[in-house]
């Protein structure tokens, strides 16, 4: 009985040693990966900061004002004015809903190609 126990524990020792060896290398690999990821995160953070700075730079009020002026004919943007506030009373009531028209029954006549505009 006792020799079997000795052999078993010896084998277990070898197995544990092998397991520890593998774990050691797996840990080192994981640490390396973490370091690489950290470097990547730092790089991305830097890129993010640069992009945030660029966003702020491109959206600086002076530039937007100049762009709005330069593209006035297309956009028609003007500074906000008090007259742009409206009162609720100025909003028209929605129109009464028209009855649905079913074309198959109610519309008569012919459609020429000109009128279609195609």
């Amino acid at each position: 009985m006792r020799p079997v126990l000795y052999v078993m524990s010896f084998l277990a020792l070898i197995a544990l040693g092998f397991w520890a060896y593998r774990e050691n290398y797996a840990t080192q690999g994981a640490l390396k990966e973490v370091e690489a990821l950290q470097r990547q995160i730092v790089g991305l953070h830097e890129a993010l900061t640069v992009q945030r700075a660029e966003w702020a730079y491109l959206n600086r009020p002076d530039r937007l004002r100049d762009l709005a002026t330069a593209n006035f004919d297309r956009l028609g943007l003007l500074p906000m004015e008090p007259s742009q506030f409206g009162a609720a009373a100025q909003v028209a009531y929605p129109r009464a809903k028209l009855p649905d028209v079913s074309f198959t029954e109610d519309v008569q006549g012919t459609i020429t190609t000109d009128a279609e505009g195609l």
Partner: protein
Amino acid sequence: MRTPLRPLARILHARQEGLNPDTIEKENLKLRHEAIRERARGRAQFRLLILCASFVIAFGAIGARMGLMAATEPMEPRASAPGAEIIAQRADITDRNGRVLATNITTHALYAHPKVMVDPKGTAVKLAEIFPELDPAALQRRFTDGRSFVWIRKVLSPEQMQKVHEIGDPGLLFGPREMRLYPNGMLAAHILGGSSFGAEGVHSAEVIGVAGIEKAMDARLRDPAQGGKPLTLSIDLTLQSTIEEVLYAGMSMLNAKGAAAILMDARTGEILALASLPTFDPNDRPTPIVDKTAEPGDSPLFNRAVQGVYELGSTFKIFATAQAMELGLVGPETMVDANAPMQWGRHKIKEFEGKNYGPLLSVSDVIAKSSNVGTAHIALMIGPLRQQAFLKSLGFFEPTPVELIEAPGARPLIPKKWPEIVTITTSYGHGMSASPLHLAAAYAAIANGGVAIKPTLLKREGPTTGVRVMSEKTAFDSVAMLRRVVTEGTASLGDVPGYEVAGKTGTADKPKKTGGYYDDKVVNTFASVFPASNPQYVLIVTLDEPQDDTLSETRRTAGWTAVPVASEIIRRVAPLMGLRPKLEPVAVDAVTAASN
């Protein structure tokens, strides 16, 4: 095996011998006890040994670890997660809506190791081609005089870095740098101030604030415990930009030397915009003027809104009337003596252009017409001591507590003695000087119903508490008086339909350095509060040496200069703040007539 205490064989034997068998029992008992004691002692010794060993092992382990830690190089824990604090060494500054006002970007510094240079002379010439501000001859000398380290540039753009790479000399080296960037350029320059490098090393350099909020809040911005959390200012970038635009247009139109404007939330004391013109670019901060004869206001670095300590003129009159009403000395309609000119000892108090609004004028009209004599009489009713105490409670005797490094230096100029003639002149804003920011804080106290506030540039969360300096009724009546200044008084150009502007003009002659006042140099101020029915915002506009030549005569009163600028500012910023114009009351006369 347990031995019996009375073994039968020995007992029988003893009985036969006629001995007492009890002695056998005693003897055996004694032996047994001895054996038990022996065993217990052995066990105790063993336990002590184990205990000893564990102590030795434990202390040995701690000692070994300490020795190891002391003897080895320090190392960062490798598995810790990186936080933003490692990346940003200086926190960003944002406006109240989170728009970036100051941030950091990574760039590089250029340095050289001349001893490892292949071609020092050629490199110097090529560097001077890339950086025109470098002198090739001086650079050559520095590369060849035997030193082993030379700084060439503090920051490089990526294009410049590429060009330096193309020179290809192994003696040219780059060090990473974090650079402060103000993406909005000249906007809010006086608030931000600027920054520069502190201690510089090859691998990094510390960025330190040199002026404005960058210097005042330097410790907060560099505090690693804040984890790079941005500093949120009370400034609104859109309002700031609009105000700077309008103010600049007004300043150039009126040929003013400088201008300042402050927009403040009357309830919290948050400064929503603070502009001072002329301005500068904090990315490329100009060097201060060293010429002793130059006035501080000549430098664009001078913050007129905070550092510009001027006599603020008639804008002070409302403080005299408010205090008199608070003390119950007068009411808005009380008639006071306004017979000009008023003789006081050797001094003669006159009105603008030698007019006479008297003999009697109601307190409300004293403000609307800006009567010096009327205010002087009200101030005399109050008396010097109470007047000083009131102005002190409004913050006029101390530098403003705003978070700018320039603020503590801008101490108001207070007369040393306070005889009655000073009481008179101070009541209409002469003889004592304060900054526009002081005025803004004091007007905020009137606007918010009588509570003194502390002006701040940091966004505040929740309501603020302050000391009450006047009753709500006094504050309400004062705003009503200020409203009359705009509707029928000296600031008639200041009315913005729908926004019920209330305010007070102030025109002060600039003092000469040699004593006395200039005839043709003035500081014009318009202190306004809007909307009058529920005052929320305070706007101060100050123009330095403006003059309006548009009509045939030259005008230098605030009503013609600062007021139109302020009204244009209000017209532009009020909608941006979401302030709905109040509809003009519809005439109800027709309806009442019909019902009669």
